[in-house]
């Protein structure tokens, strides 16, 4: 089977079988055997993808991807909601590591602080209010695990096949496509309002960033550059997001607030 589509199909079927075994209600202790086909599926999908050209990059990416995927599967497979939250924190750590590898330092920190720090701790408070021990029927029973695993397998299978095919297509015309992208972004850079800010935030020009040498690439994604973009081109959106957060705060207070007294006397 030299056709990569065949391997992606096999991976999707294996992943569906593994998830079906792991998801509640499952088959008692034997449900953890479902981890084996899942590992095989993840290995097949990532093994088909191109080589990162250095063992160090492969090692870092592979370990972070493993942490993120294992945490994700544990989140949806664990019976006790507290364990779900702990697995989710592990998955967030893996994702933050991947963002760090992809030069998104601020986002790695933000996703750790916001998800693992704030949202997860709030959820643990709510979990302490409700049944934390996982003995409730709705923790031990699933809603159509076979159908949902098959749905996820179809989605992941189609996505991975399309990504791989598009990547293979792009590889043939790579220099031209890449050149077009970066000449276009260099033009935008000249006319965008960030150009003034760029001069003061020690940002290199885009053509230098287009090369694959690491120091230039790291500074192209610097936090200063992200801040300059956020507060110039996306200033209105930032303000709207602030208003949205305020509205959410007020709404949560109203939803959870004390019952109003209808009679004034």
């Amino acid at each position: 089977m030299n056709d990569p589509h065949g391997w992606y199909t096999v991976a999707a079927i294996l992943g569906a079988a593994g998830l079906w075994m792991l998801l509640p209600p499952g088959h008692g202790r034997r449900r953890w055997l479902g981890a084996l086909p899942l590992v095989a599926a993840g290995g097949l999908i990532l093994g088909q993808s191109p080589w990162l050209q250095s063992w160090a990059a492969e090692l870092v990416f592979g370990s972070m991807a493993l942490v993120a995927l294992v945490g994700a599967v544990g989140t949806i497979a664990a019976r006790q909601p507290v364990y779900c939250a702990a697995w989710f924190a592990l998955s967030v750590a893996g994702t933050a590591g991947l963002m760090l590898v992809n030069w998104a330092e601020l986002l790695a920190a933000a996703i750790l602080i916001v998800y693992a720090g704030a949202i997860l701790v709030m959820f643990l408070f709510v979990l302490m209010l409700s049944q934390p021990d996982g003995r409730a029927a709705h923790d031990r029973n699933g809603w159509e695990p076979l159908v949902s695993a098959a749905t996820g397998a179809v989605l992941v299978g189609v996505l991975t096949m399309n990504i791989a095919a598009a990547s293979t297509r792009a590889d043939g015309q790579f220099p031209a496509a890449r050149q077009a992208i970066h000449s276009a972004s260099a033009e935008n850079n000249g006319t965008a309002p960030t150009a003034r800010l760029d001069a003061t935030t020690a940002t290199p020009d885009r053509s230098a960033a287009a090369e694959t040498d690491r120091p230039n690439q790291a500074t192209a994604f610097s936090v200063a550059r992200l801040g300059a973009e956020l507060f110039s081109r996306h200033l209105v959106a930032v303000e709207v997001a602030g208003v949205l957060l305020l509205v959410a705060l007020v709404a949560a207070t109203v939803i959870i607030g004390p019952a109003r007294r209808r009679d004034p006397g």
Partner: protein
Amino acid sequence: MNIELAWLERNLLLGAMLFGIGLVGAICRRNLIVVFLSIELVFQGVALSWVGWARWHGNVDGHVFVVFLIAVAACEAAIALALFVTIYHHWGRLDVLLGRQLREADLPEMESAIADDSVEQAPAPRWPRLPPAGVPPQVDPQSLNQRDRI
């Protein structure tokens, strides 16, 4: 294959897998909190794809998207937690199937293979049994509202 293209493909593949796992959890799990965590997994898959595209294009537009994604996720968490606390006060559990009660009174209940909750129940914890002796204690009516009595 060029290394940046390889990184883009890796990031997109991993984002797709995280998205799929989160989707499966959101469909299958019945605890509202776990469903919410699954949706956050979907968000993480999308965020990873955006970061991968930002790396490929050499600009920070994808990072900007992720910043707004985090803001929206925080809003969603606030609203969801308020709703969960309200639902728990109202019904006493955080089960997705409670949504079946949101129907007209003369309509039949939705059919499902697992709606009878008879598949697997956890063994209850074994408490020591003591012989009755002395005066029976007065039950505090306030304690009947506590968690393990509901």
